[in-house]
């Protein structure tokens, strides 16, 4: 009698074996980015990012949706307000009897048909913000960064140190030397944290100097939007900020792909 061959592990029925296992996604090509020093703009090294993060095709519709969505979120409450018939100050007494007057039937005097009555469908304060699927919004973020990268307008710097003086002349010098200023389309600097002197030099201070706003803006990483990425001439971003943004906005990237196990 032939001995029974042992079945492989995967074929032995085990209720705890998942029916579909997951494998890593197919490899995505990399794109090259140069990391510079700030503010001297000395190339320090090459670094690579996956193409599905920095080399996405341009989807203007997704960018449009994202920009509109952000604008709606930033809009805040619509504050126009009118009083509905229930909110008008007055009694609920029936003004005249239902029948017998030879006139239209009327309830209280707050009806919208009457002068002094409420507004039927008037405006009320409401939240104008809209919603957007997170994955599409994340895709929009990465599409915006890819757009900038493809045009050579994404400059990755190693680390932005705070300036030695908050004089806007100093930051103007730096910007003009690196061709980041007004004549070259203005720049957005993105830093991880608020750097007091740099922020004051660029954005000015209340009651103080006007700042170098005509040459660009500096913003914190947590403060930027898709719209900011698309607005000015270029984006100068710290590497750690870029990595953090890409990580936060990768929900639509499948980290593992389901695959059926055939035995």
């Amino acid at each position, binding site marked *: 009698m032939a001995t029974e061959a042992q079945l492989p592990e995967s074929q032995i029925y085990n209720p705890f074996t998942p029916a579909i296992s997951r494998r890593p996604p197919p490899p995505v090509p990399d*794109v*090259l*980015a*140069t990391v510079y*020093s700030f*503010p*001297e*703009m*000395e*190339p320090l*090294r*090459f670094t690579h990012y996956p193409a599905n993060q920095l*080399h996405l095709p341009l989807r203007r519709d997704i960018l449009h949706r994202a920009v509109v969505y952000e604008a709606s979120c930033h809009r805040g409450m619509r504050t126009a307000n009118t009083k509905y018939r229930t909110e008008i100050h007055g009694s609920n007494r029936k003004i005249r009897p239902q029948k017998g007057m030879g006139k239209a039937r009327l309830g209280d005097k707050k009806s919208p048909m009457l002068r002094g009555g409420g507004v039927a469908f008037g405006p009320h304060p409401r939240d104008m913000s809209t919603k957007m699927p997170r994955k599409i919004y994340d895709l929009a973020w990465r599409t915006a960064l890819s757009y900038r*990268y*493809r*045009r*050579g307008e*994404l400059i990755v710097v190693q680390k932005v140190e705070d300036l030695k*003086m908050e*004089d806007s*002349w*100093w930051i103007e*010098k*730096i910007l003009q*030397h*690196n061709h980041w200023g007004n004549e070259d389309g203005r720049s957005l600097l993105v830093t991880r944290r608020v750097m007091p002197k740099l922020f004051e030099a660029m954005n000015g201070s209340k009651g103080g100097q006007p700042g170098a706003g005509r040459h660009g803006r500096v913003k914190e990483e947590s403060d930027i939007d898709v719209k900011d990425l698309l607005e000015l001439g270029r984006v100068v971003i710290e590497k750690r900020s870029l990595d953090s943004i890409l990580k936060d906005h990768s929900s639509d990237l499948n980290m593992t792909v389901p695959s059926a196990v055939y035995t």
Partner: protein
Amino acid sequence: MAPASRIGAIASRASLHNTSRSSFICLKCRFLSYRAAQKSNSSTNHLPSRRHASSFINTEKWRKKIWGSENPPGQEDPYGAPGALDQRRRERGVEDPEPSAKEIETSVEDPDDVEEDITPRGPHYKRATTWEGLERVGYRNWGKEQFDEEYPFEGFMGPKLESREKIITAVHRALVEVFALKQADLPLVLDYNAGDVFLDDVDDFLLRLAKEARFEIDATGEGRLVLEDEELQGFIVGSITPREEAEEEDEDSEGNMQCEEEREEDRELIEGENPGQLTKKEAEDAGHLDASSPAIKPQVVKIESPAELETSDQPVTDEIPNPSSIRNHFLLLPVDNNWRNVSLKDQEVKFAVLKRVMQLTGIRIPDPEIANITNSKLLLSHLVKKPKPKKLAENLLANEVAGLPNVQIWERRYTPIHREKEIGRWKVIEQELEKRGLPATGDRIGRSEAPKV
């Protein structure tokens, strides 16, 4: 003189009175009266003005009270007499310029003028009458210029190069340098001293590179630098001075470093009118670097001006003081064109070459294009733009067409007004139109309605 005499009379009356007893005269009035009296007596004009409080009030009493002693320290008359600095100057024997009587008489009746004449500024002080040669202060953007001087900013990249030849030589130079470092087993990327970029006498170095540095391409496509001169490699490596070492100029480095004095002597030699030859020791040092281990940094003498040249080939050597102005940049283009096919696929080599090229040319190559650069030809294509196609007008002007007697070339459109001007009728037309109150130039509708002259 009448006012002066009146004030003089008041002054004399004031001096008679005891200040503590009768009517109060303020310091200003007293000063004016005193000055008026002074002016009337020109003999006392050369004395320093005693208009300070000490001339009217007995400051001695107060000084004694403040210091609490009979002999208070300091000068007897701290306010009236010339200051301590002036006294010391006098002691040293520097002559103070004494304003002449003539100058005072012609001066304006302002206290400021008198102050200038009196205060000594130094032996060579002479008041200017025009603003020629004086320091300008407060003009437009003056503040910014002061700021720029005080806080210069030097980025990594040099000034942007426009000339096609210069860019090509820069790329070739970068390639040669990187491959020289590679073949010497040294780290490919050094802290290039930014000052290296702006040197004018780099032209001789470039000329040497153009003639002697060649590339050989293997079957695999890898490039290899071949130098005609052995010590050239050491020299090339030596000319790239690490930034920190250049600043420190440390004495405690071993082996190959010359001591500071010797280096200074060499520099004087090199920077002089005649381009000195590399001293024997320098050549040795440069040559030694080939044998050095990768661990040792290529620490060298900053050679600002070139090495020994082959004097037979280069008559231009005598014109070293202004090489860039004389030499045509075409001469600096490399002789052999093999360098254009050198492969840049190795990431390290690519990075080093790109970094050096960006520094030399001042042109930043955008990231997405860097990945596509696989050889130096492609690198050049990103740096050097094709010349703009010439306009037809330029072409015509350059040809004999312009010279033909029956051909005219105009910058602008040839209009009827041009025609009329040529004939000579335009003036008359304009006058007539003006007489009738009609516009001389305008659109066709207006002109067609105008009466024909």
